[in-house]
């Protein structure tokens, strides 16, 4: 059942994306509307997959690669929906939906076995630690998408348009940084309660630290007029690469005692 809804959501994200790309200049309203409906349906199926998974495992869908990929992509999809309904903005979809699509595709080919959570992970400190970190990752992804659009439209776009992209980049990073800092605090509290140390010198924790300092740097560029615009946009894109390194790179290529 989970698999059916997973493939349905992948298909609808894919179809919604194609319709959206076919109507890049927004001239064909019907196509854009179809794309919107498809993406909403995809999100509904995606949410059903998560709900089924919760019922199946009895815990928040945050353990292992399969579940975290589902949750990470779902967080980006929710953000997209907020942008759509609150601000009527669809442009960043061009870059965020492929991320959702790829994450779900990767999830579809990952081990989806149901495993009992180790006792140390059975605490809401861990659950909100992971949830907040994935919301942060989603916001950093949105910031990178807006940054990429800023660079693409730097020469052709209007001042207002570029301002919107800069706005999304900066504010997504500010929100993402808040979520990420909260996640690090919650993780520290969990670590202290679980094994007596708020910090462990291992790859995943170190990668989180580097990500945190990186975005400290990005937020401070706001105070430097010369660094605004192009530099911040480039930094947001590099930030996304660091997010991917922290989330997937460490788990796949390095040894870490920390989970996904």
């Amino acid at each position: 059942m989970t698999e059916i809804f997973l493939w349905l959501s992948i298909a609808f994200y894919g179809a919604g994306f194609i319709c959206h790309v076919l109507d890049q200049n927004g001239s064909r309203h019907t196509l854009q509307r179809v794309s919107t409906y498809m993406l909403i349906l995809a999100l509904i199926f995606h949410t059903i997959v998560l709900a089924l998974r919760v019922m199946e495992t009895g815990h928040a869908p945050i353990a292992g690669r399969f579940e975290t990929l589902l949750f990470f992509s779902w967080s980006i999809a929710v953000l997209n929906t907020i942008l759509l309904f609150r601000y009527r903005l669809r442009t960043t979809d061009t870059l965020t939906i492929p991320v959702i699509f790829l994450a779900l595709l990767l999830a579809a080919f990952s081990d989806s076995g149901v495993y009992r959570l180790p006792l140390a992970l059975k605490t809401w400190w861990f659950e909100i630690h992971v949830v907040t970190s994935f919301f942060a990752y989603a916001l950093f992804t949105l910031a990178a998408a807006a940054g990429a659009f800023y660079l693409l439209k730097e020469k052709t776009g209007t001042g207002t348009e570029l301002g919107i992209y800069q706005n999304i980049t900066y504010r997504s990073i500010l929100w993402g940084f808040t979520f990420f800092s909260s996640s690090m605090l919650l993780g520290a509290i969990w670590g202290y309660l679980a094994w007596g140390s708020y910090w462990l010198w291992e790859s995943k924790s170190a990668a989180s630290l580097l990500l945190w300092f990186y975005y400290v740097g990005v937020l401070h560029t706001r105070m430097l007029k010369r660094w605004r615009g192009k530099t911040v946009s480039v930094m947001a894109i590099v930030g996304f690469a660091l997010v991917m390194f922290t989330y997937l790179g460490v788990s796949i290529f390095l040894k870490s005692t920390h989970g996904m």
Partner: protein
Amino acid sequence: MKSIWKFFTSARLAVVLSLLITIDVLTGTILLSSSPKALGTIDLEIFFYWLFGTGLNNLTASWWIFLLLALLVLFVVNTIVCTVDSIVFMFRPRRDAARIKPRRILSQAIHLGFIIGLLGHLVSSASGFRTMDNRLFEGSSIPIPQSSELSLRLNKLDVAFTKNGDMLRMDAYLSLIRDKRVVKDKVVRLNEPLLYQGNAVYITHHGEAPESMKFELSGNGTQEIIKIKLHERSVTTNWGYTLKLENLIPDFARDSKGKAYSASKQFRNPALEVKVYKGEKFLVSGWFLLKYPNKTPLAFDGLKLVFPGLAYRPYAVLTINKDPGTVIILSGALIFIISLIGLLFIKGEEMELVKRQTLK
């Protein structure tokens, strides 16, 4: 002096230092994974003791930590100077009140939270203690490290598993004792440590260790269970027989004449020789194979002596830590995050991902 001050008030310095720290920690992330021998013991000790001991002796793997500390010192100086500069600017006389903006105050509160947090890390890195693998048997006590008054007693250990072998619970019923009086009782589980006056007690795993040899003496329709503790050599039963543990052979075998000997030094087939006496009178002796309980019974006086196995005693493995920096870090982190959230909500517009008027 002015130029040094100006250098450290620079936001550009903050950005550059952040990026340098990022590059340094990125290298560290890889080294942490690739040098487990050199860096794998950091978490077992108080940080500075490790750094200036093991860390100094393994500079090829730990150099990035020294560089990180140097960069952090510069970053902290940068943060403090910026904060002081901003506060002085806000409260400078004859300036208009508009300069004291909530946004500015919150930004400095974020800096303050960061500095307090780092101060906590400094305290953590230099003080307290970490002890791991403290084995505590049911019914026994151990002292709390660096405390002459406090001791810890394990009253009961309750461990349960599912049919698949997954752990369901691992509960240690602990009492903290001062001057023979219980000052705190706590069921310690994973994620639920015992916290008392800065000391924290965690259960990490559990086990059971052989405590005594168990024998069953039966005959005439009655039975007596006899236990001989491993450090004792003999015991006298209620029926007046004395069992003496004579010899232990690691790899039991018999030669062609039936004499027992050890085929190797490995504990492949350990066997124990037991001699039975009635008062001073020797009755019988025999070998009990420890891996094969209930085999080779010994018969005497119409009775049967059987070795059903070793008697085990459960124990909890505890980590006992004291980290005076934790509360400071928590306070700093809370100030940091609350100020950050405040910054997002300070004006109605700030919490929006896009300035709404730009969309009209």
